[in-house]
């Protein structure tokens, strides 16, 4: 009898305590695909970067709200030697999640490995300089100095992207951050567990993080992800498209958050490289700034923001989003659509509009193909709107959607395209991270990859201004140069900036401590302070 009562009581307790409460301290969200690696030094994709951020211990952490660097594994640092040397002092008693100690030797080893070409570490590019690699010196178990040949701008901020790794490699490595990778099932989920040796404590002296674990499901289908969020199975949902965001507004308004214009841009650019797949007369159009500006003037950016993004986007004024308050040139404005002015300007270049067909001076009808990625409805819709806008000035656009690999193949190396509608996802507010787009010799230079030398005086000027970004220690001087750069880009229009989409997210009301930002990782940058009700 007693045994039966105990059994019934136990069953009652278990029934009343729902599964959600049993794992109440586990944050649950999804990623669209698997991370490529858990090795912090080999990270080159956004998903792996997120895992790195959540698990990695860095010397410095940038507060994504104030945009100021804050001490992390390093309790302090000082700059000396005219900005060439940075000396870090580590906190005492640091340990990795497996209990092994973390000292200045581990920092030196990690930093050297990042710069060593043998390790092929993408993060090394952040720390390299044009004038030569930095030197590392371990002063004591808690002190380390890094010396550059020339001053490096904002050197302390760079260390936010370097996670200190343990000496022994493992498939699921130990970490010095708030979490470590505890379990991984490819195509299914990644589970991060709380690091019992994490250094940080809150104001009351309680060890962080508050969360016990994080479960990240691999879910490529965004509809399913959204459904699970609306059902309460996920705590947050990142980077929503406008249609799904409006669904959250309708079904769970308290959970919908529009963080304002993101750092990302939707762009259109033409192939200006000589290419056998582009006829000579088309090459002449694409290399004409007047032609590019006329195309830009014909596109209704406000319609794109209103229709495609349902009002959750801002017409772009230039290469920098208006949300990037410090670097954005406030003097720039998004160009209003003016197709008549576009046709007048084109007439100066010998184009004529007759019977709704625009022709160049040799009589070729103006027609080009517009490549874009398949599977993205906003991008396909934008392409359709651009096609419709340009039809009104007599330009015929053929939309071609390609899978991502085929698209990359056409854009990089030997470019085999005419025009491309694409997006820039900026991961940093600092424009020096985008230097490879603007330097004409770089393979990521969109309109002419790996140019042997700048084809025009303005491109040469852009090269100079970009190199200055990487070497000038004064922020004010960099800003001045960058403003000039932005004005050149708008005037010459090698890339037409269309809109800056808003950063749309869904956040469960049970998630506390979240301070959203438009800088990645937008919702999780202060993961150690998040808790669940």
């Amino acid at each position: 009898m007693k045994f039966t009562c105990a059994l019934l009581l136990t069953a009652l307790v278990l029934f009343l305590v729902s599964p959600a409460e049993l794992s109440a301290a586990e944050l649950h969200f999804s990623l669209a695909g698997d991370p490529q690696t858990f090795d912090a030094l080999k990270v080159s994709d956004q998903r792996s970067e997120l895992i790195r951020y959540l698990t990695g211990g860095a010397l410095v952490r940038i507060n994504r709200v104030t945009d100021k660097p804050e001490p992390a594994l390093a309790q302090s640092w000082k700059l000396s030697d005219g900005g060439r040397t940075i000396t870090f002092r580590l906190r005492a008693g640091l340990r990795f999640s497996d209990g092994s100690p973390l000292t200045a030797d581990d920092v030196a080893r990690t930093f050297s490995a990042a710069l060593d070409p043998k390790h092929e570490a993408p993060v090394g590019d952040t720390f390299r300089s044009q004038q030569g690699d930095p030197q590392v010196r371990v002063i004591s178990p808690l002190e380390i100095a890094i010396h550059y040949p020339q001053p490096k701008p904002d050197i302390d901020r760079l260390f936010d992207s370097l996670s200190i790794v343990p000496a022994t490699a493992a498939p699921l490595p130990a970490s010095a951050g708030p979490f470590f990778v505890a379990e991984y099932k490819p195509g299914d989920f990644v589970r991060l567990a709380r690091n019992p040796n994490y250094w940080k404590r809150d104001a009351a002296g309680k060890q962080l993080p508050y969360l016990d674990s994080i479960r990240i499901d691999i879910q490529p289908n965004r509809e399913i992800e959204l459904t699970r969020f609306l059902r309460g199975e996920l705590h947050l949902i990142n980077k929503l498209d406008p249609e799904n965001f409006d669904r959250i507004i309708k079904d769970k308004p308290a959970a919908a958050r529009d963080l304002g214009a993101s750092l990302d841009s939707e762009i259109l650019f033409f192939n200006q490289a000589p290419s056998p797949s582009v006829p000579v007369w088309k090459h002449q159009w694409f290399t004409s700034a007047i032609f590019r500006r006329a195309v830009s003037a014909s596109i209704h950016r406000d319609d794109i923001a209103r229709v495609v993004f349902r009002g959750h986007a801002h017409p772009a004024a230039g290469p920098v989003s208006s949300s990037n308050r410090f670097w954005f040139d406030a003097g720039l404005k998004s160009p209003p659509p003016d197709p008549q002015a576009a046709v007048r300007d084109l007439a100066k270049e010998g184009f004529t509009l007759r019977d709704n067909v625009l022709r160049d001076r040799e009589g070729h009808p103006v027609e080009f193909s517009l490549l874009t990625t398949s599977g993205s409805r906003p991008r396909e819709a934008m392409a359709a709107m651009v096609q419709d806008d340009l039809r009104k000035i007599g330009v015929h656009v053929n939309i071609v959607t390609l899978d991502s690999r085929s698209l990359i193949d056409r854009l990089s190396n030997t470019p085999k395209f005419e025009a491309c509608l694409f997006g820039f996802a900026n991961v940093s507010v600092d424009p020096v991270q985008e230097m490879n787009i603007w330097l004409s010799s770089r393979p990521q230079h969109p309109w002419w990859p790996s140019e042997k030398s700048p084809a025009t005086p303005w491109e040469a000027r852009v090269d100079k201004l970009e190199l200055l970004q990487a070497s000038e220690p004064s922020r004010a001087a960099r800003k001045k140069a960058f403003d000039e750069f932005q004005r050149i880009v708008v005037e010459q229009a090698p890339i037409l900036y269309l809109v800056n989409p808003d950063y749309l997210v869904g956040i469960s009301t049970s998630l506390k401590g979240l301070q959203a930002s438009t800088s990645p990782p937008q919702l999780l940058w202060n993961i150690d302070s998040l808790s669940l009700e």
Partner: protein
Amino acid sequence: MRLLNRLALHLATLVAVVLAGGFLAAALVRYSPGFDSIPEDLNTALSPETLQALHARYNRENSLPRFYVRYLGGALRGDFGVSQSFGQPVALLLRQRAPATGRLVIWGTLGGWTLAALLAWTAVWLRRSVLTAAAASVSGLLLAIPPAVLALAFFFYQAPLGLALSLGLLPRLFGTLRAILEECHASPALLAARARGIGPLRIGVCYVAGAAAPQLLALLGIAIVLAFGLAIPIETLCGVPGMGALTVQAATARDMPLLCALALMITFLVTFVHAAGDLAAGDERA
């Protein structure tokens, strides 16, 4: 002896087709655009040197025959290489994913076959125009609905995905099953059996199943292959971590080791099923 000869012939065909299938699949991947590209090509934070190093890390084998011979050598030892998109051993990935797909395909095939057979039997045997029209309408309706969308609807209403696959398979089997059953229905042996008053169940088991066995077996083989084909979009759209979703991801990423393993597996499955159907059909020569 004749059986042994047929077995040997089928075995030789199996091996030849699997090897050819694997090679052709590898060739299609190797020469498709985007093979030499990596997603990091558009990563604006990376220097040219790092990009070069990343390309080298992906270790694209330029010589297709050399790659394939080496790959086959490893496959014979159970080593299918390392997936370039997942960074995991291919054999491990396949082992992890196979159960999800296996369950979906088996339940889907059994369900689809059974439902299609019942519907076809209803249409042929009962000879009521209303029932025939209803059966045709159900088949037409299910043919028109994309199976993946059907599965998505099932997912949202938390119904079993295997049933969605069955319903997707049903119309693809119904028409052919109906044609086979109609031919049997008009055959002299069946007419004689019906004239003798033998019941439909006994007729079905003793006369129809036996007479139409080769065609039914061939159709079963096709059903399994069709089910696997339907499983790919269902798994992809519904987020099932099975081999169908793996195939799509591998194709998108031009992941040669993974795609070769999948091609070898699929070719083996299809060839085996067809060979089994052919063997069961008996001696091909009249």
